[in-house]
């Protein structure tokens, strides 16, 4: 059994495919590419796959991590796997990993936030800066017409957390008035952000 970590992106309308469907989508693409999984033990064995922190539907993502437990792989299989994925789900990089489970390594996540419709950026910026999200943020910048924010603990402080603040403060009505993109997920080692791959 070998563990492979990949970083993938979810773009376009594919962002509306639920997080929970991804293991099956990756698995069937891997089978089409001739990769063999290590199966979980138990009553109904499944390919062993761990995804990063859940992402709500409607949030494009640029570099989400996922770990796959294969019996073996080679470059040829992996390249075929890439081409066997549905459109707008793309694997960008991969590497063999060992050690802690992925769920224990996702300690921070970065987001880009752009107001949509007629919502003004300064009010979005001010609201977030003066909220719990602003307090928690590891990095907070205004640039290129949007906000860039890095928050700890993506399990707890995900895109829903940000949108909830903006809705509670009546800056936006709902998800349709804001664009939230998750750009990366990282580990924190001794207080500094460390890439997962």
């Amino acid at each position: 059994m070998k563990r492979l970590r990949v970083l993938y992106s979810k773009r376009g309308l594919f962002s509306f495919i639920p997080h929970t469907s991804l293991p099956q989508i990756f698995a069937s693409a891997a089978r089409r590419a001739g990769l063999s999984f290590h199966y979980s033990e138990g009553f109904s064995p499944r390919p062993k796959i761990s995804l990063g922190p859940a992402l709500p539907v409607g949030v494009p993502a640029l570099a989400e991590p996922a770990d796959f437990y294969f019996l073996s792989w080679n470059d040829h299989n992996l390249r075929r796997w890439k081409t066997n994925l549905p459109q707008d789900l793309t694997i960008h990089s991969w590497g063999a990993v060992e050690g802690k489970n992925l769920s224990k390594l996702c300690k921070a996540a970065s987001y880009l936030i752009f107001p949509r419709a007629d919502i003004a950026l300064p009010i979005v910026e001010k609201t977030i800066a003066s909220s719990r999200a602003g307090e928690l943020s590891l990095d907070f910048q205004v640039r290129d017409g949007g906000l860039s924010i890095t928050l700890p603990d993506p399990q707890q402080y995900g895109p829903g957390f940000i949108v909830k603040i903006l809705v509670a403060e009546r800056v936006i009505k709902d998800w349709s008035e804001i664009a939230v993109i998750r750009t990366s997920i990282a580990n924190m080692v001794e207080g500094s952000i460390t890439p997962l791959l």
Partner: protein
Amino acid sequence: MMNYESFKEYKDPLWSCLTKVNRPSRYVGKEWGVDKAWNEGSLKFCLAFPDVYEIGMSYIGFQILFSLLNSISGVATDRVYCPWTDMEEEMRERSIALRSISHKIPLSEFDVIGFTLQYELTYTNILTILDLADIPFLSSERNDDHPVILAGGPGALVPAPLSEIVDVFCLGDGEPFLPVFCDLMEKTRGLPREQRLKEISRLPGAYVPLLHGYATEEDKPESRESFPIRRNLVKDLDTAHYPERMIVPNAPVVHDRIPIEIFRGCSRGCRFCQAGMIYRPVRERSPETVLKLMDTLLNSTGWDEVGLVSLASCDYSGILELLKRSQPILDKYNANVTLPSLRMDNFSVQLANSLESHRRGGLTFAPEAGTQRLRNVINKGVTEEDIENTLDSVFAHGWKRVKLYFMMGLPTETEEDLEGIIDIARRAMHIARGYHRRSQINISVAGFVPKAHTPFQWEPQDTIEDLSRKGRFLKSKVHDRNISLHYHEPDQSFLEGVLARGGKELSKVIINAWERGARFDGWTETFNLLLWMRAFEEEGIDPFHIACRRRDLDEKLPWDNIDAGISRSFLWKERELSLKGHVTPDCRWDNCHLCGLEKVCSMLSSNKVSE
């Protein structure tokens, strides 16, 4: 750096809608297996499923037809499913027209929209799809610029209720029809609509109501001679088209697996069953073809489960051999196989036991009626002994959950028959307790809906009051908390019955009900009989007269213009035998009963022999 412009997805007109609706994945598309390049110059064909995505994607017919259409050069194929009410609302609010799921082409730009009619209670969804595409409802109101509206599936054999809406009904199997139809559409491109429809109306198995007229009216004397129109039939499934690649959905669907149709048709002869009549004769795909498809499809789709699909898969001749020979292929892909539609006999249980995948949940059987007398009436060849033995075998093999399907309101039914349902449930529980401390029996009771082209097509359907009373009676008899009993909504069974046997006057009613807000009538959360009753009233139609009345042998029936293959005299003879409680054995293991397909049958068997 990246700015808002880097994220083109937000420019997609669907984006904002999708942030607001339930299950947005229904509208995304982007599935694996849709790989034919979209060529603008092609004949554009949209397969339309008048229900939600997750049901439509589980329908084997569209996998076959999508692949078949794509195999025709010069044809570009896409699909559409009916938007749920929340999505419909969002689209209307934003004036977004309905587009096909993969290539996002406006529906109105297609040359053909082909609906499948699987279930009467999806008919209003057809109108939702047409309306969101800005296509007029009535065939007579569409012009040269509008797509041709085609409809196939079992509902096409009872076309009257949709006959003012649909342009062309494709009767019977789609495989022989679609290639010639597409060819003709291509050849008549640019001609006036009426002329095109005229050409199409000459194709075997095509029914064009606008030109052919209707069964119960004499307004088109020149087309009389073309009635009844015979349904098309695939003679040999081994040479018929079958996909080697399939569309693999991204979101969870009802049946998430490779469907392989192992045979078409069923000759068990259950007298209530429309499918058992209209898909005759039985045509099997050879084990060699099935095994080859299994290997090819496991490789090309990446699915890890194969469903061997048919109306009664355990009846496949040589099923054991097929399963045995499947094993090395399944092992190669770490996949398993499922057999839907188990019969109530020991053989089926042994089979299920040999399939690892069945171990997960419980088993489902359909005794259909509670007493031997009534099972004889409906020709369900299952004996008391079969039921006992099957249940014993199920629990002995370790299953703890069993689901049993029954019907209420069958012809000649008495209280004793209803009590028989409860009795079977109790006996099942008694047997279960002999093996396990905890077990669960689930009973599902549907209201019987008499269907066209069956021996019960002349029979009255129970009224809503009757079915409600019977449902409550059954529920009141269940006192064991490990037995659960659920019965179908009688209001829905009633409407299904009206749409199943009504005439062309129903087109107006369906439109009227849709305009009042009828949507997804097959779903209890959206169904509203009141809207329909108002529509019936306004159109001056008595729905009870359609559903709850006994018909005479010599009454002209709205589907008399359709020849489904089985003869009227056979159906009437079966009805007579039924009322006497006489059974008719399966003709695969008995004499030919001259159902009307004997010529086709003998031709098929002589073909097989000569091979």
